[in-house]
């Protein structure tokens, strides 16, 4: 484990990664029983479960860094809205299937750029988690990208829907790559990859998929979202209320 003085920064960095996976996993599982086809229902549930699995490893690690005896469940279910450090993009509502796919492509490409570099992290535990997650993430990106191409290059209706979803969600992507003090600190210590480098890998993949899907890449707009600092959109509260209800109503309840 890291030396005590650096624990809070590393704790917050690991929470950012863990919360991203947890919140997106929770969002995607809202599709269970509602996807357009039984096969897609299972596909989305599989991805949701992979993400929750990543969240478990990351949040358990965060608990150890914190050193106050909190486990993965305490961290997932007993924190408040403002203590969540996921980027704002992943808490956005599912919308229609096309909008879910757009969000998924944007975030899968981000996670792949992250995990592919995190396997070389100076933090051995993060490197090991990334090693496991990178394989899953490659599949997620393949699944979501294939769907985006089908929908974008599909009918007029499907093209219009995913283009509009892309316009709506695009502003949230700026936050992913906007380095703040914590990101820079982690990168300097060799724990985290540089966001600059991740952005170009991400951008390359996104451009490729958008071209194949005959979609137009929206222009970057000024950065206004700060989920990774704990300032969230209104949507996170509803998601947490549903996710945390059981543990709040029946503290310590187990299967």
């Amino acid at each position: 484990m890291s030396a005590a003085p650096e624990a809070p920064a590393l704790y917050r960095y690991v929470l950012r990664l863990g919360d991203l996976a947890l919140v997106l996993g929770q969002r995607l599982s809202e599709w269970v029983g509602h996807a357009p086809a039984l096969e897609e229902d299972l596909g989305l549930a599989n991805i949701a479960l992979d993400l929750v699995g990543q969240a478990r490893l990351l949040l358990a690690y965060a608990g150890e860094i914190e050193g106050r005896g909190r486990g993965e469940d305490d961290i997932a279910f007993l924190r408040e809205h403002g203590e969540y450090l996921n980027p704002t993009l992943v808490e956005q509502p599912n919308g229609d299937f096309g909008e879910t796919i757009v969000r998924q492509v944007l975030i899968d490409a981000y996670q792949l750029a992250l995990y592919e570099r995190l396997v070389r992290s100076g933090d051995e535990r993060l490197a090991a988690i990334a090693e496991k997650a990178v394989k899953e993430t490659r599949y997620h990106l393949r699944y979501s990208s294939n769907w985006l191409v089908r929908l974008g290059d599909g009918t007029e209706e499907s093209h219009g829907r995913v283009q509009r979803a892309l316009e709506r969600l695009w502003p949230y992507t700026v936050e992913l790559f906007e380095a703040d003090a914590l990101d820079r600190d982690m990168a300097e210590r060799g724990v985290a990859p540089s966001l600059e480098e991740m952005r170009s890998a991400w951008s390359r993949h996104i451009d490729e998929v958008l071209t194949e899907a005959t979609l137009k890449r929206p222009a970057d707009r000024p950065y206004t979202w700060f989920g990774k600092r704990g300032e969230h959109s209104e949507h996170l509260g509803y998601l947490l209320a549903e996710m945390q209800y059981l543990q709040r109503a029946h503290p310590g309840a187990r299967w």
Partner: protein
Amino acid sequence: MSAENNAPGEREWPLFEIFIRPRGGLDHKHVGSLHACDPRMAIEHARDLYTRREEGVSIWAVPSASITASDPAEADALFEPARDKIYRHPTFYDIPPEVKTL
């Protein structure tokens, strides 16, 4: 059956038959069927539906429409004549006691 699935105006995705090779060196085995709008999606669905617990190392997806099946009504003509041709079954040999797994 599959022709109906591919009929114009039919919104249902076409059906694919899925074959999985459990391990290197073994044959692909039929495991079931699923709907998908193209072959690439069929492979992805098969991965999600049939290989979640490491059941396989390779997947084949075959459009069900490409399969020509024997007619169950003709089963008598096709298969029963084999029943009374006992010389086709190697049952006349004494199996040496050393051979345990024949």
